[in-house]
């Protein structure tokens, strides 16, 4: 209390409700000048909601926000910006067809008479960029620069506005390990200049490396604030989850049998027509879980879509057992025996405005017994869905409610039930635990292992190294549209995988 002036941001009893759901429950928090404060919590714990209130995107129902000793009402982001608060969002807030300069000056444009003065702005940006070693090109268009660069544009946007409180929402999710370490370097430079930083994250390793203090949030409440150098990752994890966590998954060794999926030298393009998969080959055997490790954007999405028939391939061959899958349509692929838990359950996995019943037959509605003579057999569908609800512990008031009204975990369970119950020979699981809480994550992992044990091939694609290390029997590393390494969880560690994911190390390929 003696050093009041050192506290640049203070939240007192901040509360945010969405209907009956309390996202933030009387949150107290303080940020000191020149520190990096980590905000740790599980998905859905309320971290982003909290920071969105600080930034003026949401309005709290109760509580106070104090910035540098002054109480403020943050009804729009402009108030926050005015008081030196800047935020780098997880999904970048950049206008793709605009240049770097245009994006940075938007909202506080420099003028010469009536005219927009881009020249002097660009010069100022160059100057700041040199100062913090951001390497920005002021005249490049956003849609032509890398994701890492885009993030730096976001940082520059904040600096340009003279912010001294910087909020980062999951800043490392889209970066390569190298880009991450560069970012942490930028953090150090910023704090040295007297800026204060809040980082929202659920990655313990980065907290240990970069943060001074760590405030843990669980279910909308502050659980504790810890001094990072006096704590351990295990401690942090327990605070985050609320009970002892086992960081590993129970499973027996895999007993791989015959080759199930055979992918040979496939080439495919991304949405903008550039080659994304460049001659990629691998196999998945019956009874094993193959994990594809890699940083987002190295071809994982395209690979999964190519196998499942959603994206055409230009070259190469995909086979399931003796069945040809190359450039078949999604219906054929699924009928031949591929189950697919898609990466984005809201975009692909579910029709949110359909009922659970309608969603549970999304892939089989067209055939008997679900449809007879073109007529949908609702009674049979209902019966089957009720069984799913019971067997997969889907928490819902009934099978007739909209998928939209369920929680993320329960939505995922609908998809898993649907895909597994179709008895596929190969199950593709793309980011199957994204956005789920710990309980749901372990449920998903158990299901994947059970499928493996039942003699199916499982292809797990994940950006979370921990998940790959825990669940996969064999690991393939994807980089720049190619498989650059093969290993097993027992033979490797996260550091080594990180290097491979960044394309700095190749290994393996000597598999049986």
């Amino acid at each position, binding site marked *: 209390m003696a050093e009041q002036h050192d506290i640049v941001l203070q939240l007192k009893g901040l509360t945010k409700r969405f209907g009956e*759901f309390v996202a933030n429950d009387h949150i107290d928090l303080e940020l000191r000048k020149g520190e990096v404060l980590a905000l740790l919590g599980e*998905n859905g714990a309320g*971290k982003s909601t909290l920071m969105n209130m600080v930034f003026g995107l949401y309005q709290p129902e109760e509580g106070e926000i104090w910035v540098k000793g002054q109480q403020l009402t943050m009804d729009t982001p402009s108030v926050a910006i005015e008081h030196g608060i800047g935020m780098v969002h997880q999904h970048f807030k950049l206008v793709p067809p605009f240049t770097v300069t245009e994006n940075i000056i938007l909202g506080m444009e420099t003028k010469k008479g009536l005219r927009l003065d881009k020249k002097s702005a660009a010069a100022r940006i160059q100057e700041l960029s040199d100062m913090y070693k951001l390497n920005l090109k002021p005249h490049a268009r956003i849609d032509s620069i890398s994701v890492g660069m885009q993030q730096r544009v976001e940082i520059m946007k904040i600096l340009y506005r003279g912010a001294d409180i910087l909020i980062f929402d*999951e800043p490392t999710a889209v970066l390569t390990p190298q880009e991450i370490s560069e970012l942490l370097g930028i953090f150090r430079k910023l704090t040295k200049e007297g800026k204060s930083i809040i980082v929202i994250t659920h990655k313990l390793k980065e907290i240990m490396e970069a943060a001074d203090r760590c405030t843990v949030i669980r279910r909308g409440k502050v659980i504790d604030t810890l001094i990072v150098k006096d704590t351990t990752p295990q401690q942090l994890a327990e605070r985050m989850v609320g009970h002892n966590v086992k960081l590993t998954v129970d499973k027996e060794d895999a007993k791989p049998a015959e080759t199930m999926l055979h992918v040979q030298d496939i080439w495919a393009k991304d949405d903008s027509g550039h080659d994304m998969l460049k001659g990629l080959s691998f196999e998945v055997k019956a009874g094993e879980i193959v994990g594809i490790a890699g940083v987002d954007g190295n071809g994982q999405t395209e690979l999964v879509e190519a196998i499942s028939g959603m994206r055409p391939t230009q070259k190469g061959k995909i086979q399931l057992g003796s069945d040809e899958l190359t450039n078949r349509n*999604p219906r054929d692929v699924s009928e031949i025996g591929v189950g697919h838990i898609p990466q984005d359950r809201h975009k*692909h996995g579910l029709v949110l405005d359909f009922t659970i019943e309608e969603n549970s037959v999304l*892939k089989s509605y067209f055939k008997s017994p679900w449809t007879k003579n073109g007529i949908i057999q609702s009674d049979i569908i209902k019966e089957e869905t009720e069984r799913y609800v019971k067997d997969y512990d889907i928490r819902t008031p009934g099978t007739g409610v909209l998928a*939209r009204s369920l929680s993320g975990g329960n939505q995922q369970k609908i998809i898993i039930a649907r895909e597994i119950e179709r008895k596929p020979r190969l199950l593709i699981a793309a980011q199957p635990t994204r956005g789920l809480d710990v309980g749901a994550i372990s449920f998903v992992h158990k299901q994947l292992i059970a499928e493996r044990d039942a003699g199916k091939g499982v292809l797990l694609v994940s950006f979370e190294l921990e998940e790959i290390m825990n669940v996969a029997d064999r690991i393939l590393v994807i980089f720049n549209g190619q498989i650059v390494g093969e290993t097993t969880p027992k033979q490797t560690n996260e550091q080594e995988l990180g290097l491979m994911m960044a394309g700095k190390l190749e290994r393996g390929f000597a598999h049986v």
Partner: protein
Amino acid sequence: MSKMKGLVTRLRQESVWISLLSIVIGLIIGAIVMLVSGYDPLLAYQSLVEKIVGNSYDFGETLRAVVPLIMTGLAVAVAFRAGLFNIGVEGQIVMGSIGALLVGHFVSLPPVIHGIVAMIVGTLVGGLWGMLVAWLKTSRGINEVISCIMLNWCALYISHIVIRTLMEESGTGRSKLIQESASIQLDSLSAWMDGARIHWGFAIAIIAVIGYSFFMNKTKWGYEIRAVGSNRHAAHYAGMKVNSTVLRAFFISGMLGGMVGTFEVLGVFKYVAIAPATSGLGFDGIAVALLGMNTAIGIFFSAILFGALMYGAQGMSFGADVPGEVVRMIISIIIFFTAAPGLLRMFFKLRTRKGRKGANANGNDSVSS
């Protein structure tokens, strides 16, 4: 029993109340406008009602006005369920009427069969014209609203060219008449209703309402259309042929529109006029579908409401000297409030679904945070 239960739960839905409230507000605002303009709103509404149900001729003619609205409402709704806006029903009507007119005028067939063939041809022409919109959308990525606007005018001028070059009744600004054998008027019923123009379309409209409900909710194709309309990415993932589904939906939508054209030619007017603009029935269909929330029963009732109001408008101007335009104003106000339910919520603080929505918003958050 379950039907009743369904109706009850539906009545509990907020959207139904929004629709009903919009209607009331529309009528009240209409009354206020008339009052301010120095007219007697009570007399006006009275004459409106009298015009609608006053005698059997007017009642029949009211029904005649309702029929096309049911059909265009369904046409808009089918496309809407597939996730697309069909504001091209106007043009599909025109094309349907031209198809029916050509067959009705140039082809000679026995009665009844002639009518059926003319109807089928007109319906198909309308369907193909509708499918053109979907083709432009799926294969060339052209926004359907834009292509619909263009195609509406194209249809209109094509109809003019066809009539002018092949079958103009010179000096009248309209086409020659169809042959009597192609008429789909129900003469005995018409006579019974003092000459109101009653035609097969009445029965077809009723069948279409029931058929729409069944098709959408109970058939494989309906399921596909709803899936594609609600989430085309998920539909693609699930192995549905998204583009064919969209084409199919627009074909059906266009057929419903085209059928309206055939009714107007074969059942009502017997000719096609060289009009400076399209009929507006397609746009009215949007209003009907919107107020009816794209459900069969909703469309049925809102078509009756709008059709009756539009026909009754004539009574207003005769009986109370009120310009009939006031009815269109009322309809626009009703649609305005239905389209922006937030307005009514603000005024009436209806039990909102905000709670659930909020929880959801958070559900979305949890995916990415």
